[in-house]
């Protein structure tokens, strides 16, 4: 290659790279919804860090935070891990937000334990840190926790399932989240508690990662192992819908009771359509809105939010059972997320 070619190619590289970078920046700057980058405007800066950018639950959480930020005159910046479990990505996001001068950070930890040192560093710099949806381990690593009581969410569908079975002998399948993740463990334990069952009564337990395709595979395998399963506990509605598909393929969708947790709009619609018997609905929008308000009030009068705030859970079903409080899918669809 001649020297001139080399020269022009490296200059071309520089020009092209920076040109598009600048263009992209201008484009996204106006479309990001987080408003102008004007600093020193006196607005309280709030950071929101979710597990991923793509899960509808976190999309809704972001919406709730944006709305609350607008109402309270705060400036919201958001970040997320690249995948569920991306601790390093969340650590980087915390550092950058602290550098950007946020007053408080709302975080849904991907790894309850691994994130703790980074949170401690941020708190040491005077930043208020609130965990949303998922507690840290230990819970005291953050100033406050705004979350669903996952044990209670599990209990509600456990009680419902017990009432719906009306004394029939239950053969339970549990489609769980993943080993060691507290949300999944609490919902699972809550279900068993509400149902009055123990681990021994679970005929088949499989991890699904909360994923529909994996939920379907798990249910197919469970049916292979124990064909007479008649109650299916699922970690969330995608897993429940996967289970439904597997049951339908065997013609069993009518006589197997599926219960779930989450209350997403697709999931709530599935309850209305009779694919899922009941679900415990949680409220991510409320978690985020309360979080933003807490940071703004901390910025105004220095009052730190503390302890655990239950953001509520409601049992949604159209086949209500005596002695189990529930609301119908009309209410569920009005308050669903996603």
């Amino acid at each position: 290659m001649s020297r001139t070619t080399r020269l022009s190619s490296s200059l071309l590289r520089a020009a092209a790279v920076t040109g598009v970078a600048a263009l992209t920046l201008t484009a996204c700057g106006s479309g990001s919804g987080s408003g102008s980058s004007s600093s020193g405007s006196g607005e309280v800066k709030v950071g929101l860090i979710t597990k991923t950018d793509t899960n509808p639950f976190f999309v809704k959480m972001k919406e709730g935070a944006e709305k609350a930020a607008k109402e309270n005159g705060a400036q919201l910046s958001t970040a997320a891990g690249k995948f569920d479990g991306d601790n390093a990505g969340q650590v980087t996001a915390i550092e950058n937000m602290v550098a950007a001068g946020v007053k408080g950070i709302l975080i849904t930890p991907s790894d309850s334990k691994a994130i703790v040192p980074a949170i401690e560093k941020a708190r040491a710099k005077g930043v208020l840190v609130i965990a949303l949806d998922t507690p840290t381990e230990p819970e005291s690593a953050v100033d406050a926790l705004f979350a669903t009581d996952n044990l209670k969410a599990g209990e509600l569908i456990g009680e419902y399932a017990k009432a719906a079975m009306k004394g029939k002998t239950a053969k339970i399948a549990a489609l769980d989240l993943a080993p060691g993740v507290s949300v999944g463990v609490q919902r699972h334990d809550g279900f068993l508690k509400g149902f009055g069952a123990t681990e021994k009564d679970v005929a088949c337990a499989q991890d699904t990662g909360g994923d529909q395709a994996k939920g379907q595979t798990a249910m197919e395998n469970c049916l292979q192992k124990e064909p007479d399963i008649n109650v299916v506990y699922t970690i969330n509605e995608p897993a429940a819908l996967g289970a439904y598909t597997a049951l339908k393929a065997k013609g069993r969708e009518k006589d197997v009771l599926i219960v779930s947790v989450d209350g997403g709009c697709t999931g709530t619609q599935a309850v209305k359509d009779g694919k899922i018997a009941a679900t415990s609905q949680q409220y991510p929008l409320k978690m985020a809105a309360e979080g933003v308000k807490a940071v703004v009030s901390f910025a105004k009068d220095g009052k730190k939010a503390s302890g655990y705030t239950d953001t509520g859970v409601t049992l949604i079903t159209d086949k209500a059972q005596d002695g189990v409080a529930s609301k119908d899918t009309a209410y569920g669809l009005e308050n669903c997320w996603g």
Partner: protein
Amino acid sequence: MTATTTPYSELKAPTTARRLLTAPTTGPLAALLLACAFFSFSTDQFLTGGNFSLIVQQVMVVGTLAIGQTLIILTAGIDLSCGAVMAFGSIVIAKMAAEGSLPPLLAIGLGLAVCGGFGLLNGLLVQKIPLPPFIVTLGMLNVAFALTHIYSEEQTVTNLPGPLTALGETFPLGHTDITYGSLVTIGLFLLLAYSLSNTGWGRHVYALGNSAEAARLNGIRTSRLTIGIYTVAGLLYGIAALLLISRTGVGDPQAGQTDNLDSITAVVLGGTSLFGGRGSVLGTFIGVLIVGVFRNGLQLMGVASIYQTLITGVLVILAVTVDQLSRKKAR
């Protein structure tokens, strides 16, 4: 099809200025500086010593992986297993020291050896069977990923002894705090950059990447060289494992899942050709910084993280396009 490129070291260099302008790192460097200028104007917090120290801290793990990745890509290979091998190394170090009651230094040595062993195995499979690097390292990615999760029992390892996190500690330099790990990474970049441009080994690496057959006919022991390069890369992943532990303060089985792709991104942005034989480790350092600066700068501006992914993607495609176009011209 083989393009005839003059190795950079053999270019005549009439003037220093000319040499600087024609260096393969000029383009990426210009991009980096322009990005820095842009963020300096856009936010108040970007142009501070503390922030630059932070960016280097944030990129040191992927940066160290990317050094190994550069060596392998220079031989026209690729390593998809680097992030997974690092994760396994980090769990070995963390568990051995925290639960296996091995002295921390021994645990670190064991972690380095395990990662080096993975590199050696990659190299042997690529060279001796031989199998395509893409396939070998894809398989190894899954092996290392699975071993990590089996060995860790899906549990994050906490309560690490001090020496394991020592590289994450800081020392003051002027008004800012620098981590020791940042120095290690920068030192490794300089060491490998020197080795590639000023030693016989370095010239052999470039020769191997340009044409393995020609290199062999010229008396270079290409088999030993290739296996050596994969092993060195593995050892670098072991160092990255230690840096990772020191940064997060825990042993995390979920770590490193996209780091293989991030390291390739850095190599490509730094101007190293995926077809082998052309590029530099210093270019990769600039590539790593470009990603770090964009992520940090956009966050300071309050731009959502999904746009960081978008921009990185566009930059990578551009960098490869420019590489291809310049090759076509050279034919």
